[in-house]
């Protein structure tokens, strides 16, 4: 086997650094944000950003209709987005991977039940299902996370299941069984390491999806509570005054775009770097 040293993938590098920066913003929000995100200055409502004619350096990205500092709300919004994205994506990954390994490894009726469940789940458009769940669960950051986990575990399950089936057919797995490894040990020690690259790639893509779902739910007022700054909620607020303050609408859209793009690039880069077979399209 020839081991060649390659430069890290460009998408991996760019996506990873931008995502890392956003993560830092989220972590250090209280130190980075110039104002408290909910502080209202009613004398400075709908102030434009610093680069427009009447902008001031006091509010670099302007203020919203209640005089809240847009930059601070964007930074704190990153905190909400990242918290939800990380927790929800991990949750969906664990649940999806668990059932994918069960279905792919044992096959038979276990596979049948899990696959039919996934089929029923996937018959709902994800947006519709997550909103239906929120109606049942009620609003709140934890409820948003739970809703995303319950909707998106199927993404992991569907793609990983066939991956597990492929790995399960390998000789070394059969050999591990022959020398008396238990099923659990074979799954964890022999199969999981082989499916891990795909798991990590899917996780990165799921982070982007979770950011979007969180934004959608807070946009329609079914997401995090109203005192928690969130990008979707900023969009909903800014839409009312978009004719007077278009930047207020453009900036949170841009924030979501950059975040999702960075996770997608990172995921694409991971796929190319981690997948030795260089399979071009798996349609995750």
């Amino acid at each position, binding site marked *: 086997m020839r081991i060649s040293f390659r430069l890290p993938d460009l998408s991996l590098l760019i996506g990873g650094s931008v995502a890392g920066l956003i993560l830092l913003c989220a972590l250090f929000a209280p130190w980075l944000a110039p104002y408290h995100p909910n502080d209202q200055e009613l004398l400075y409502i709908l102030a434009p950003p610093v680069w427009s004619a009447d902008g001031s350096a006091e509010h670099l990205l302007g203020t919203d209709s209640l005089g809240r500092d847009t930059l601070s709300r964007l930074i704190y919004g990153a905190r909400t987005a990242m918290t939800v994205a990380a927790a929800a994506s991990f949750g969906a990954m664990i649940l999806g991977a668990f059932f994918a390994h069960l279905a792919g490894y044992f096959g038979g009726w276990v596979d049948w039940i899990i696959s039919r469940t996934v089929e029923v789940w996937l*018959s*709902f*458009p994800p947006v*519709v299902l997550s909103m*239906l769940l929120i*109606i049942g669960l009620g609003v709140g950051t934890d409820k948003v996370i739970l809703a995303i986990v319950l909707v998106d575990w199927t993404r992991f399950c569907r793609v990983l299941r066939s991956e597990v089936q492929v790995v399960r057919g390998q000789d070394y797995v059969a050999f591990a069984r022959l020398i008396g490894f238990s099923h659990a040990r074979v799954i964890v020690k022999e199969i999981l390491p082989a499916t891990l690259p795909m798991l990590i790639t899917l996780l990165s893509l799921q982070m982007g999806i979770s950011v*979007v779902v969180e934004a959608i739910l807070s946009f329609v007022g079914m997401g995090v509570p109203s005192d928690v700054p969130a990008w979707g909620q900023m969009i909903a607020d800014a839409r009312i005054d978009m004719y007077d303050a*278009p930047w207020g609408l453009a900036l949170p859209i841009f924030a979501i*775009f950059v975040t999702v*793009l960075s996770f997608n690039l990172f995921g694409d880069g991971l796929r190319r770097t981690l997948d030795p077979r260089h399979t071009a399209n798996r349609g995750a």
Partner: protein
Amino acid sequence: MIKAVIRVIGRRLMAIVPVFAIVTILVFGALRILPVDPAQMSLPPSATIQQVEEKREQMGLNKPIWEQYAIWFKRAVAGDLGESAQYRMPTSSVVFERLPATIELVICSLILAVFVGTVGGILLFSARGTPFESVGMTLTSAVMALPDFLLALLFILLFGVLLPIFPVNGRLDPGLQVPAQTGFLLLDSLLTGDIGIFASALRHIALPVMALGLAFSPTIVRVLHSSLINTYQQSYIRQARLRGLSDREILFGQALKNAILPVVILVGTQFGSLFGGTLLVEMIFSFPGLGNLMVKAMQTADLSVIMAIALIYCATTLIFNSLADAAAYLLNPKLRTG
């Protein structure tokens, strides 16, 4: 041949019946668990406790849940989907009145998505090996990071606020009246020959269609691009080249026909998310379709409407999935032999 096609499609469609039945049970059960009292919702706020109790009795809400489901099922089969608490009208008429608007929106978006996706995919493939390929790939990544509802808001900002060339509200200019026939505005206005209404409807549907269609297109571009690359590695392409066919003849006469299969499957499997996207896009553009109705129904806990629309979404998704499955089977000679 036709018979075989019908049999394949029929078998796939029959397979979704049990799945759909389970979906109805799940949605019904989920909506009954909600802390909302449908009896109270369907009465004016001034109703006495006794009136609510009578209504509960009349609606069968005191019966066990499986019996309630049986009642719902029997009525649903007969076309009675209950009464909308929000509009105090039969749910079926509330829902079906808005269905054509959504179908029109979805069909137009799908046409735009497939058109842009196919042209983009061919262009990206033709640019393989040149710097344009990576530019195109980057562009698709960028658009993929803009889901339909963000594109919708961006278009409102660009073409409604900064450069107001498109209307951003509703289906028609206020004051225009349409002789309602099918409910499909574009079709109706063409049938009656009313160009003014047609133009107005077209201008109103433009931005929602662009948002939904363009959000879907980069996935098609990517899949067609890689599918064409795979196809060109097949031996028959080399043979066609040896026979002296031009690049154009090979691409449009041979390769595209085979490379389009993954696109057909993609459209079928992703149709649900396009249809689901109408929820937010219709809400953003105040487009009077199912999605808008669903958001309102969810905000007011109008259970029978939520149930009806959720089932329409599921049925459509399932049908398109199985059609994609059937198409994959029928179009792929390798799968057909089995």
